[in-house]
């Protein structure tokens, strides 16, 4: 697995308004996990849209080794839809399945294997809507694993998940790093991002990018989050206010 993510001077936005993200410039190597920090509306999801080729870019370029896999926030999924965990995981094979063929037997096997990898081997046939929030998040990650992409983009995968799910997801991150894949993860938990390989701070524009020890200074965090920054545990931990008005 090789390639990584190269973004050079990226500026882009929807419609004719001002740029939703500007001056984004970073290189994420294969085997690196990048934490993407920023306030609500700071451009984290917009950056992912740009990497997915869904955002009109006005300047700059994005270089990827292939189509990335994307894991959305779990609450964007319809819980009343008649799909099982297996059905959702199998969607990861749609890109390589011709419309007139059934999904290949190998992919069906791999979909089960991906669910086992995220600790849901015994929940394969369960309706997606009947799973817990953390389990649903793991199903969406299993779907991304089946895409066999060199780059994975995960939108707040650890927000509000239970401890078991969080541990499973972190273990999958470690596997992906060992496999040489590049993983970009948005989060509001600064301490969590500090444990990964690189941190990208966004607030409409790129504030900083680099190793966590170099990037996560009080000045950078203040510039990134402004009034949305909350410092906890006597100053040893900082979190941004999350999408749903709660801190993680």
């Amino acid at each position: 697995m090789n390639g990584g993510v190269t973004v050079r001077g990226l500026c882009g936005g929807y419609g004719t308004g001002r740029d939703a993200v500007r001056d984004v410039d970073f290189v994420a190597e294969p085997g690196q996990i990048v934490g993407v920090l920023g306030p609500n509306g700071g451009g984290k999801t917009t950056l992912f849209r740009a990497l997915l080729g869904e955002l009109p870019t006005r300047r700059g370029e994005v270089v990827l080794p292939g189509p990335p896999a994307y894991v959305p926030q779990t609450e964007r999924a319809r819980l009343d839809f008649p799909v099982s965990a297996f059905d959702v995981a199998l969607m990861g094979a749609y890109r390589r399945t011709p419309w007139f063929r059934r999904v290949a037997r190998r992919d069906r096997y791999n979909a089960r294997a991906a669910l086992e990898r995220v600790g849901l081997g015994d929940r394969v046939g369960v309706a997606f809507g009947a799973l817990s929030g953390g389990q649903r998040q793991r199903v969406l990650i299993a779907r991304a694993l089946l895409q066999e992409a060199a780059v994975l983009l995960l939108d707040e995968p650890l927000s509000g998940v239970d401890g078991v799910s969080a541990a499973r997801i972190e273990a999958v991150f470690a596997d992906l790093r060992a496999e040489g894949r590049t993983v970009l993860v948005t989060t509001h938990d600064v301490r969590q991002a500090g444990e990964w390989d690189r941190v990208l701070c966004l607030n409409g524009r790129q504030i900083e990018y680099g190793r966590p020890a170099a990037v996560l200074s009080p000045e950078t965090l203040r510039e990134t989050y402004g009034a949305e920054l909350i410092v906890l545990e006597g100053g040893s931990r900082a979190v941004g206010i999350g999408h749903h008005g709660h801190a993680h």
Partner: protein
Amino acid sequence: MIDFSAPYLQRAVIEMLLLAVPAGLLGSWIVLRRLAFFTHAVGTVSFPALVLASAWGIAPQLAAVAAALGFGAAQERLARTRRLAADAATGLLLVGALAVGVVLASDVFESGTEVDTLLFGSLIGLSDRDLWFTAAVAAGTVVLDLALRRHWLAAGFEAGSARALGLRPVLADRLLLAGIAAAAIVALDAVGALLVSVVLVVPAATVRLLTDRLAPLRLGAMALAAAEGIAAVWLADSLNVGAGPALAVMGGGVFALVATGTALRPRAVTA
């Protein structure tokens, strides 16, 4: 007992069996993707076009296609007005179409009793050409479903990831709406402008109460639509009423029974 040797009844039964195909395949997506109001609107907005087609002697399906295209364009234009919600725009167009249709039928062309047929359908008027139109739409529905059901499933489940999965959700959704419009148009002859939902929505909505799986939903809706259609032909012929109202009574009754049964069903208790 119904005598199916009469050609008009044979055509009516064939029409209902053909309509069961889009009722099962597209009806499931209509229910899952919450497009019931759109389906109803496509039927209703065709009413003034049907009045014109009847008066001018042109094929009602062609007139209905023109009405559906006009409806789609007008809805898209209204939807761009941010102060008007999409369902409000649909409602506005729907009421406007009914009003125009009534004025055309009563004051311009003086269509008289034919208005009932246009609004609620007729078994007697079905021609071989109508059956061919319906057969073509049924075959097109099968092809569309085969080609696009993965797109519709993934986009309906979670739209934001569909393109990242290698799918084309915008094109697929437009073709879904076009397929639903085509199915609604061919259903007009049998059930009329006001009751296309009875054949395209109600069977799938009924089966949805009984299953959480996609394949049984599609097959069940198809089977129920076929059974209700044949029963409606018998009822309409026996009581000398329109097929649309007969099917509406039948479909509504079955839905009410199933809804009551599922509501009374003991629920599993989890510890």
